[in-house]
């Protein structure tokens, strides 16, 4: 396919407004197949401003006189305004952005063209089997699946029952199991009408079913949309901010997700039970619960590498349909079809965990923000497609770069790591009281708050850590010079 067919006007003079903190930028605006470029001319200090078209969530155009204005709302929740000379140019550029930002074909997307310096294709796509993880939970196991296909006939499946029996038998004698169903008992029962259902007590001896309904799909997406709306609404009097925040229900979802993960983790850690988590498909709330439970229990998943493994294993390989769920973020006017911020909900829960245990995660807020940004629009291939199978078909692993190799470059570390990290061998039991959960300002107010606050403090910590590492690192040199003498 030729991108040039979709580009109606190549260039125009424009001014870019990036919110209250950044100065406006004036120059030549240019639409390419994957990017929007603004080139302020050779003398300007930032010589080029670049936006991946894929990250545009919604676009709004207005014309007045012989000028036009395009408002771009991005998937990372940024709002940009472009003032463009010429009505024709404005309309054409808007149309081009609209067309190019919503291309559905995976193999023409930017990751297939992105060839950054210093990275080799194929790097960091393969993780070594996380042995530590399996060793650690040698007795109690955490499993995930989709719902059993019981159906209206109340079918049974001997192999499925045998499998769960074997799980208990493989644990210690007399071990019990809990099935955490992320739907309400009612919904689980109703699922029988469409061929699904949930494990009948009699068929799975030793297993006890617990229903912990987690919101998913459209209600979750709506909650996200309302929250972003509330956060961006700077005009309205804010006397009712707190009830509006409550009305968005986002923090309620965070609370539910964290408590369910705690429940699963508690079952393993305190009761010595095996845990099976599922909802309907096992590709959304199930993953929130299993991945959070691992962070709670398993110290190795809290390291930089361990966390990447966790996301790779529990989200990407587990088949969370990123392409469907993250097709649009909170600004799209289109009716949501399959969009849902399930992965964001997980990241928010991790952020809450990090806020309550500020030393125990090796990665910092920057890592979570990067994952959010890349899940919705990325030059890397990691979050492309909906499943392993699709990724194979598109040859994602051989033809695109992995996000992990991008993130693991030395220059990115300062943004992503938590300088205060101290390995913590214990389980992290977060408080899920509403007083302990906060709005993730760093994400939801990222573009509207003054940039200063905590960055300055982190910069200080980094200074100390780097100083210390330098000093530490220089010691061998000193001893070496001693030896020479």
């Amino acid at each position, binding site marked *: 396919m030729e991108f040039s067919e979709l580009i109606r006007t190549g260039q125009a003079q424009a001014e870019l407004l990036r919110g209250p903190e950044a100065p406006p930028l004036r120059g030549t605006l240019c639409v390419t197949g994957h990017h929007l470029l603004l080139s302020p001319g050779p003398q300007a200090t930032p010589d080029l401003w670049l936006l991946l078209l894929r990250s545009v969530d919604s676009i709004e155009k207005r014309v007045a006189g012989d000028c036009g204005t395009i408002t771009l709302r991005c998937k990372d929740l940024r709002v940009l305004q472009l003032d463009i000379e010429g009505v024709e140019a404005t309309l054409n550029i808007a149309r081009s952005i609209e067309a190019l930002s919503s291309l559905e074909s995976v193999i023409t997307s930017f990751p297939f063209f992105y060839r950054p310096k210093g990275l080799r294709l194929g790097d960091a796509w393969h993780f070594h089997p996380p042995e530590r993880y399996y060793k650690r939970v040698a007795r109690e196991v955490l499993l995930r699946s989709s719902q059993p296909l019981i159906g209206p006939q109340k079918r049974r499946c001997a192999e499925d029952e045998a499998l769960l029996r074997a799980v208990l038998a493989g644990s210690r004698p007399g071990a019990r199991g809990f099935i955490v169903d992320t739907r309400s008992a009612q919904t689980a029962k109703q699922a029988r009408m469409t061929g699904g259902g949930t494990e009948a007590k009699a068929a799975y001896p030793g297993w006890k079913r617990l229903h912990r309904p987690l919101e998913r799909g459209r209600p979750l997406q709506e909650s996200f949309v309302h929250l972003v709306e509330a956060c961006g609404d700077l005009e309205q009097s804010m006397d009712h901010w707190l009830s509006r*925040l409550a009305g968005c229900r986002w923090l309620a979802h965070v609370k539910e997700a964290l408590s369910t993960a705690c429940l699963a983790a508690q079952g393993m850690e305190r009761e010595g039970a095996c845990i099976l988590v599922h909802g309907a498909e096992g590709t959304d709330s199930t993953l929130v619960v299993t991945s959070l439970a691992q962070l709670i229990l398993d110290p190795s998943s809290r390291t930089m590498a361990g966390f990447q493994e966790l996301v790779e294993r529990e989200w990407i390989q587990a088949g969370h349909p990123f392409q469907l769920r993250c097709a649009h973020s909170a600004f799209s006017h289109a009716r949501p079809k399959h969009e849902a911020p399930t992965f964001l909900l997980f990241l928010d829960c991790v952020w809450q965990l990090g806020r*309550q245990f500020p030393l125990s995660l090796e990665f910092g807020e920057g890592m979570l923000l990067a994952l959010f940004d890349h899940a919705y629009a990325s030059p890397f291939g990691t979050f492309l497609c909906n499943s392993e199978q699709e990724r194979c078909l598109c040859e994602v692993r051989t033809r695109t770069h992995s996000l992990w190799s991008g993130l693991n470059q030395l220059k990115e570390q300062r943004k992503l790591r938590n300088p205060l990290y101290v390995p913590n061998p214990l389980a992290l039991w977060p408080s899920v009281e509403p*007083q302990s959960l906060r709005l993730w300002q760093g994400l939801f107010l990222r573009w509207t708050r003054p940039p200063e606050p905590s960055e*300055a403090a982190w910069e200080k910590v980094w200074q*100390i850590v780097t100083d210390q590492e330098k000093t530490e690192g220089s*010691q061998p040199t*000193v001893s070496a010079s001693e030896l020479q*003498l």
Partner: protein
Amino acid sequence: MSLLRGLLGMDLIRTWVRLFLSFREKLALLDSALLLDVPLGVISRIEKMGGATSRGENSYGLDITCKDMRNLRFALKQEGHSRRGMFEILTKYAFPLAHSLPIFAFLNEEKFNVDGWTVYNPVEEYRRQGLPNHHWRITFINKCYELCDTYPALLVVPYRASDDDLRRVATFRSRNRIPVLSWIHPENKTVIVRCSQPLVGMSGKRNKDDEKYLDVIRETNRQINKLTIYDARPSVNAVANKATGGGYESDDAYHNTELFFLDIHNIHVMRESLKKVKDIVYPNVEESHWLSSLESTHWLEHIKLVLTGAIQVADRVSSGKSSVVVHCSDGWDRTAQLTSLAMLMLDSFYRSIEGFEILVQKEWISFGHKFASRIGHGDKNHADADRSPIFLQFIDCVWQMSKQFPTAFEFNERFLITILDHLYSCRFGTFLYNCESMRERQKVTERTVSLWSLINSNKDKFKNPFYTKEINRVLYPVASMRHLELWVNYYIRWNPRIKQQQPNPVEQRYMELLALRDEYIKRLEELQLANSAKLCDPSASPSGPSQMMPHVQTHF
């Protein structure tokens, strides 16, 4: 283990041990790690619950309401009327004023190696601000508290206003609290002036001396053609105050001024608001509708209004647009909040530990914030309408600022909580009495210990490791509701279910890192020394020192 802190003499401590012993089983049943440390000064109210015929566990005993957001309930056995004696002793020592007993601070014989009473010296503080100067003078007209009994002895007033002028102005200001200087901008020389409301009354009285005096204040800065007056109250309240003889500066009487109302509510509204906060956090934390319950307390909204007001004051002054006069009704509650917060935003000196102590000492203690009435030290009238958490609200605002600017303050959260704990504890003399004249009369500085002695003799505990000293930076916090938070570590600290890590793990880890770095640097220096010693010995080194040393040093 647990014992209600007596600090009152041995016989009483024995009583408390007994009291403790008599219900230890019950407490132990609830939680074996329960530890109580309650200064008697914190107690606001003691009630008997249940009677001799009450049935059921924990139905008979004492219920103690504290000033610091908690209640304590002691279940006792009915046999032997053990409660009566306990109730009497508690009442006697928790409310010494009603029993003609001294407040505990006068009995406290603690010794510290620093004397906190020397922290604040008004002459030195004004000198630091560059005062007196051509336009402002220091006056001792209030030396014996004759001009105004709730003001400090030393005041800074316009050079051009004579002492007689001041006396005439005093007749027109509520409780004689005339406009005096709080702070002067080091460069543009605009000032923050504080006072009480003018006594305009229903008939709209005017006072030429007061009008002239404000104009003299305006003229201390040549570039300014209007003086800004911030009336902290909502305009309706300011108007309503005319009925009781007060009011505000009208346009027609005060020509070169502009007046703004800041909509901050009075002490009664704040007291009720905090009461609602307590209702949702103690004994049980409201769970299902937390955010909307929190909103319905309006506490954060009040915080927002106070901060917004202070930001406006600070912005006026820092931009050099005009000098500012701040008042409310009497000028000792909202006015103190606004001037001290604006000063904290404008002047980085006040963000250091000692600077903050001076700020509290100056704007609150010396200028007559009625601590005794607002807190009710040693007083049993728990329902007294004069009580109000105005100072707590100020400290909350400071905490909000410290959250938004984590490197700007030398002190940490513990410092703020410690100040609040001793606001009630009566262990120190710092917050006792309503004004300086009373404190002089009671010889507080001679007979009690200052809270700053405790803090300054152990400063490390109260230091924010992220502090970066900055001069001349004005801090404008974001006073939007989105950026304000309930101070969970203070208001909900008694709830065992709210995760609270003390000391703050981030601070602690940072200190460890600092210490580690220092240690490495030290070891490196030692190695270098050892090296250079060897290098200086020509027989040991063929290459010579000049080639080796730079190599080692490049790592810094």
